[in-house]
C-alpha cells in the first residue's frame, strides 16, 4: 500500500479565491493510500518545497500528489523536489486545479467540488504508479553527414572544428554538389568555385573528416547516440591510394562520346573521367557502361598508360559498417527536368536550356570556355528570353505547389551577367512575381532592371516554337493584357528545385519524415528547424526546402551546433515513460511495430516462463532508447500485451473511475 501525501497550493489567491483549499485537503484524507494532506500558500516556493521534503521524511511517504498549477508548469520542479527527499521522481502526480479549475470557474462551491474530484483522480492514479528509472545510453562521438554539397561540407567542417570525427558520404565521384556547377553567385557575383573549392580542400585535409565519395548509405539501425550505418563504396576501378590524379588515362581513353554530366550533357567526356579539375578526391572513375574493357574485354589502354599502376578492373563494391552518434541529412536537390513541359519544346530545341545548363554555358570551365554560344549552331545569341517558375507555384500534376525560392534571384543574375558580357544582347524575363526577400536582394534585382536594362514582363509564356533556326515565344503580358510573340535565339527555363530522388528511401531508412514534396520535415517548423523529428537525425541545406547558398551555409552551421551539443554528452538519459510488452501475453503478431513511427519495436525469440512452462516465443521488445512514449502501440495490440509506463491502462482507468463516481 502506498503512503501518499497530498499538498494543496493556494497559489496566493489564484487558487484560494475560487477553491476552498482546506476543504480539498480535508476531502482527500479518506482516500485510499492518503496518510497526509495539507494546504500551503505557494507550494513551488522554497518553503513549499521544504514542506514537501520534510513531510516525505517524517511520514515516510511513498508518493506525493500536488494540487496546483498545470504540470506543464512545475512538474519538473516537483519531480526534483521529491527526488531530493529520496523518492522516485515518477511517484508524483499533479492535479491541475488552477488552469483547469480556479481560473475558469467563478462559483467557489463548484470550483471546490471540481478540485476535489481532480485531486481524487490524481490520488487514484498515483496509487498505481511504480518507480521509473530513466535509461542511460552512451554517445558514439562521431557524426555521419549524408551528402557532400556545400551544406554537408559546412556542417562537417564545423563539427570537425569542435574536435569530433565526421564522415561524409557522397554518392557522386566528388564532393561539392550543385555549387560546383554554378558560375557566379548572387547577390555579390563572386565566383562559386573560388569560394567553394577552398572549403572542399579544407574538408579533404581535415584530420577529423573522412570522405567516402562515390558511396551510398545502404542500411541504418540503432538510435540517437548509437547508430550503426552500413556504407556501400561503389567500385571506381581506380585504386585511390595509388592514383596521383595526373589525368593521363583520361587523355588516352578512346571512348570519348558519353554526355558529360558535369556540363549537363552539353559536351562529352571519356569513359574514365574526373568530373572537373578541382574534384575532391581527384581520382578518376570508370563508367562501366561506356568503357570498352567492360563492354568487349579488350582495350585496357588506361591500365597501360597509368604509371602509378592504379587501374584495377577487378575492384569490387565494398561494404563498411561504422557507428555514429548523430546523422546529418544533406542530400540537397536537383533542378526539375522540364520534359513534361511540351510547350517550351525543351526536348525538341537545343537552344531551349535550363538555368543550370545556362550556368555551364557561361562558365569559363564549361563546354564553351565561358563564351555564350547556342548549343544548336554555336552562334552567339542576340535575344534571350528567360522563363521563371517552370514547375514551381503551379496547380497541375506536373507542377510543384511551392515556390523554389532561388530562381528569381539567379535569373536576375543570369540576365545581368549576359548584359554585362554582351551589351548588344536583348534580355527579357517573364515572371509571375519577382520575389527578393533577402539581404541586398531587391537592390540586386533593381540593378538588373535599372542599370542593366533587362526587360521584365509580368506574364506567362504559352508556347515556344522553332521557326527557321530561331525561336518564337508566345506570351501574354498580364499587366497590359496583351498577347505577344517574341523572336528569341535562346530560351532559358528556371526550373523548380526538387529534392534528391534518394530522399524518400533515405527517409525510410532513417525513420525521418518527409513532406508531400519529399523535402525532409523539421522537428518543429519554427523552434527546431535543423532537427528531424527522429532523435539524432539532423537536417542541413536544401534537402529540407529550397534555399540559396547563404541560407544553406547558415543552416549547415546551425545543424553542426546541434550535433556538437549531442556529441558533447557522454550519456543520454531517456524518457522512462515508454512502452513495454508483457512477454507472457504477446503473441508476436507484429501489429505494434506497424504503428510505431520510430521503429522502436523489434521481435526476438526469447525463452519465457509461462507459469512453470518454459518455451521459446517470438515476442515484441521495445527499445527504450528509441521509444518516444506516444502509446500508439498500446492501443493497437490485440492481445493487451503492450502498455505504457507512467500512463498505463490501469492508471488511466483509475482516473476515469475517480472522475465518474
Amino acid at each position, binding site marked *: 500500500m502506498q503512503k501518499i501525501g497530498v499538498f494543496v497550493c493556494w497559489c496566493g489567491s489564484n487558487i484560494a479565491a475560487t477553491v476552498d483549499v482546506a476543504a480539498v485537503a480535508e476531502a482527500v484524507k479518506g482516500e485510499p493510500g492518503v496518510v497526509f494532506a495539507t494546504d500551503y500558500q505557494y507550494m513551488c516556493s522554497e518553503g513549499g518545497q521544504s514542506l514537501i521534503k520534510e513531510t516525505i521524511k517524517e511520514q515516510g511517504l511513498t508518493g506525493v500528489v500536488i494540487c496546483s498549477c498545470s504540470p506543464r508548469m512545475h512538474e519538473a520542479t516537483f519531480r526534483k523536489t521529491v527526488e531530493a527527499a529520496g523518492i522516485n521522481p515518477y511517484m508524483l502526480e499533479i492535479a491541475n486545479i488552477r488552469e*483547469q479549475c480556479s481560473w475558469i470557474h467563478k462559483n467557489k462551491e463548484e470550483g471546490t467540488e471540481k478540485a476535489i474530484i481532480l485531486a481524487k483522480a490524481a490520488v487514484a492514479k498515483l496509487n498505481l504508479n511504480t518507480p521509473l528509472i530513466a535509461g542511460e545510453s552512451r554517445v558514439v562521438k562521431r557524426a555521419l553527414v549524408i551528402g557532400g554539397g556545400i551544406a554537408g561540407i559546412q556542417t562537417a567542417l564545423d563539427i570537425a572544428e569542435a574536435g569530433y570525427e565526421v564522415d561524409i558520404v557522397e554518392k557522386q565521384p566528388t564532393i561539392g554538389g550543385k555549387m560546383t556547377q554554378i558560375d557566379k553567385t548572387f547577390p555579390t557575383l563572386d565566383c562559386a568555385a573560388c569560394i567553394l573549392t577552398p572549403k572542399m580542400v579544407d574538408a579533404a585535409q581535415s584530420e577529423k573528416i573522412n570522405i567516402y565519395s562515390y558511396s551510398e548509405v545502404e542500411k541504418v539501425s540503432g538510435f540517437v547516440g548509437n547508430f550503426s550505418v552500413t556504407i556501400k563504396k561503389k567500385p571506381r576501378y581506380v585504386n585511390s591510394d595509388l592514383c596521383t590524379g595526373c589525368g593521363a588515362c583520361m587523355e588516352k581513353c578512346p571512348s570519348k562520346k558519353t554526355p558529360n554530366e558535369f556540363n549537363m550533357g552539353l559536351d562529352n567526356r571519356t569513359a574514365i573521367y574526373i568530373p572537373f579539375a578541382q574534384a575532391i578526391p581527384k581520382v578518376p572513375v570508370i563508367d562501366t557502361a561506356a568503357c570498352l574493357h567492360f563492354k568487349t574485354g579488350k582495350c585496357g589502354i588506361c591500365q597501360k598508360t597509368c604509371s602509378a599502376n592504379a587501374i584495377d578492373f577487378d575492384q569490387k563494391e565494398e561494404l563498411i559498417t561504422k557507428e555514429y552518434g548523430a546523422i546529418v541529412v544533406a542530400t540537397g536537390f536537383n533542378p526539375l527536368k522540364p520534359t513534361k513541359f511540351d510547350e517550351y519544346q525543351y526536348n525538341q530545341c537545343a537552344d531551349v536550356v535550363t538555368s543550370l545548363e545556362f550556368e555551364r554555358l557561361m562558365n569559363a570551365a564549361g563546354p564553351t570556355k565561358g563564351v555564350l554560344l547556342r548549343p544548336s549552331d554555336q552562334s552567339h545569341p542576340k535575344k534571350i528570353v528567360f522563363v521563371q517558375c517552370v514547375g514551381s507555384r503551379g496547380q497541375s500534376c506536373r507542377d510543384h505547389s511551392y515556390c523554389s525560392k532561388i530562381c528569381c534571384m539567379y535569373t536576375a543574375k543570369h540576365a545581368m551577367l549576359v548584359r554585362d558580357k554582351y551589351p548588344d544582347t536583348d534580355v527579357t524575363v517573364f515572371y509571375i512575381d519577382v520575389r527578393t526577400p533577402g539581404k541586398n536582394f531587391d537592390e540586386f534585382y533593381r540593378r538588373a532592371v535599372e542599370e542593366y536594362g533587362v526587360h521584365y514582363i509580368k506574364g506567362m509564356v504559352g508556347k515556344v516554337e522553332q521557326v527557321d533556326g530561331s525561336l518564337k515565344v508566345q506570351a501574354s503580358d498580364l499587366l497590359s493584357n496583351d498577347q505577344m510573340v517574341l523572336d528569341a535565339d535562346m530560351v532559358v527555363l528556371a526550373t523548380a528545385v526538387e529534392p534528391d530522388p534518394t530522399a524518400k528511401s533515405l527517409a525510410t531508412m532513417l525513420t525521418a519524415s518527409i513532406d508531400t514534396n519529399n523535402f525532409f520535415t523539421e522537428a518543429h517548423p519554427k523552434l527546431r528547424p535543423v532537427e528531424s523529428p527522429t532523435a539524432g537525425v539532423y537536417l542541413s541545406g536544401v534537402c529540407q526546402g529550397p534555399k540559396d547558398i547563404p541560407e544553406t551555409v547558415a543552416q549547415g552551421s546551425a545543424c553542426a551546433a546541434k550535433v556538437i551539443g549531442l556529441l558533447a554528452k557522454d550519456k543520454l538519459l531517456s524518457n522512462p515513460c515508454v512502452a513495454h510488452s508483457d512477454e507472457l501475453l504477446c503473441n508476436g503478431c507484429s501489429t505494434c511495430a506497424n504503428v510505431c513511427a520510430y521503429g522502436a519495436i523489434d521481435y526476438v525469440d526469447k525463452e519465457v516462463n509461462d507459469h512453470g512452462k518454459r518455451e521459446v516465443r517470438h515476442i515484441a521488445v521495445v527499445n527504450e532508447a528509441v521509444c518516444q512514449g506516444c502509446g500508439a502501440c498500446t492501443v493497437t495490440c490485440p492481445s493487451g500485451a503492450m502498455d505504457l509506463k507512467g500512463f498505463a491502462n490501469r492508471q488511466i482507468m483509475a482516473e476515469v473511475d475517480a472522475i465518474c463516481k
Partner: protein
Amino acid sequence: MQVNETNTVNTEEKEFTPLIVAFCCNWCSYAGADLAGSSRLSYPANVKIIRVPCSCRVNPLFILRAFQRGADGVILCGCHPGDCHYSTGNYYARRRMTLLFSMLDYLGIEKGRTRVEWVSAAEGAKFSATMNDFAATIHKLGPNRKLRDLRCEK
C-alpha cells in the same frame, strides 16, 4: 453552458448537469486547455480532463469505461492533423474513434455524445468554445442511460 430550468423539489428530477470526460494530448490540447485557463475562458465545471501523451494513447476501453461509469459524453482532443508531436498519432486516433463511435451509435450511445476535436496549444479560445458547445449538446441529449453499469445504480 448551464441552462437554468426551474428546480423541482424531487431530487430525482434535479436539473441535469452532464458529466463529461475530456482526454487531451499533452502537447497540443492539454496546453490549449491551459491557455483557456490562463486567458480565463470559462467552460462548465463538469468537464474533467485526463492527460494522455498523445491522442493515440486513448484506448477505446477508456471511453467504454467512462460511459459505463456514468459519463454522459466523452471528447478526445489532439493536435491538428499533421501537427501531432509523434507525427502520426492523431491519424491512428481518428481512425480508431471513427470505428468506435459508430459502434457506440449502434449500441445506442448517440453520435453526439462522442467527439474528436483538434485543438492546438495556441487555441485556448477554441478549447473553451468546444467544451461549451459539447456540454450544451450533451445537455440536450440528456443523461446517458444506455451503457451504465446497472450494478452501480442505487
